[in-house]
């Protein structure tokens, strides 16, 4: 399985966010997308997840499941954690597992994220870090080959970051792919870097 892109360009709100972006990520490989704020790191991940249309260029996935779009074979972990406060921690995870096509076990995911004894608590009582760990638990509860992580370590403390690094390592060893947008290093050793935002772009022509 190989995810590739050629000459990608993205326009949002009339502004050309980035252009001429190309990359290729094979099974077991990771790509760290860096760049200053507003360079389009999040837009690139949202574009791959199919949430945003690309203005130019081509994006493809070789040897993926043919009838599923790239977005349906990828996990998109955005800035927000998609956690409903009035549902309990377990209800949140069980819902996303059922909706996104399940597969993995929610208990294992919760214990991997260190949330198992909070399972019955309403998610409203979780701290930002715990909510982040709950959305990370989604990655394990629903196994998908491609992980699109948008600043995954935000709001995480040191121990949670090392837990995340371990999860990412096992995902890569299992033949999965990771594209992560972040400022600093997030514990991904074997990641190649894709730098965005070098050229200055005026408004879209």
């Amino acid at each position, binding site marked *: 399985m190989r995810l590739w892109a050629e000459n990608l360009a993205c326009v949002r709100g009339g502004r050309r966010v980035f252009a001429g972006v190309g990359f290729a990520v094979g099974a077991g490989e990771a790509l760290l997308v860096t760049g200053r704020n507003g360079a389009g790191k999040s837009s690139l991940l949202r574009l791959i997840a199919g949430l945003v249309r690309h203005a130019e260029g081509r994006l493809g996935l070789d040897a993926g499941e043919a009838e599923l779009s790239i977005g349906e074979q990828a996990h998109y972990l955005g*800035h927000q954690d*998609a956690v409903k406060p*009035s549902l309990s921690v377990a209800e949140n995870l069980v819902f996303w597992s059922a909706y996104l096509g399940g597969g993995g076990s929610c208990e294992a995911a919760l214990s991997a994220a260190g949330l198992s004894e909070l399972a019955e608590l309403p998610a409203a009582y979780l701290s930002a870090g715990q909510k982040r760990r709950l959305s990370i638990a989604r990655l394990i509860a629903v196994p998908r080959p491609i992980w699109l992580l948008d600043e995954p370590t935000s709001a995480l403390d040191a121990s949670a970051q090392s837990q995340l690094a371990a999860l990412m390592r096992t995902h890569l060893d299992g033949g999965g792919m990771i594209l992560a947008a972040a400022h600093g290093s997030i514990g991904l050793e074997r990641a190649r870097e894709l730098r965005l935002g070098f050229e200055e772009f005026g408004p879209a022509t």
Partner: protein
Amino acid sequence: MSALKALLIRDMKLAFRVGGGALIGALFFLIVVVLTPFAIGPDLALLSRIGPAILWLGALLASLLTLDRLFAADYEDGSLDLIMTGRAQLELAILTKALAHWLTTGLPLVIIAPLLGLLLNIDLAAMKYVALTLLAGTPALTFIGLIGAALSVTLRRGGLLLAVLVLPLTIPVLIFGVAAANSAIIGPVPFGPPFTILCGLSLASLVIGPLAAAAALRHGLE
């Protein structure tokens, strides 16, 4: 299929939990219907003549104004992104959310309508028909209101502007709804024709609503 079922159950749970909007529509409907006699006066004969119109206007406003949060709540906490990367068809997911909204807001309107009919002096026999028209009409209001709910996310605009945009689309439903209801009470027009047209409108909006809302979400989100 279990994905859509999970979405339906989740939306119903959210509506009935603290902070959910389950019976707010019914409460709004109750207050609007109770207010009208204060404007029109306690003359029972007049009230029973315009009773169905009051019930229908109340149901229309209650349905549309509570739809505004349907997608906005999911958009704000990031759930909408995940719903769009789900394996279920977006149109079907939207249809499921609309069904959940109708069950928690539209159906309660139909259930308390006969009670409010007492206040408006609509006699019980005719009330059966009025409730039937509401049962057939409220789904159309929800599905047409879907388009406004989707636009309120893509345009990032609050409720009232979108109610204004979407209200003209509900005029046919209002006309045939009230006509069918009135025909059961005053009755020059037989009940059949307006009611079947109302059902037709509901079925049409069942298709057009989700399609338009899905298109709005797909192309509007950034």
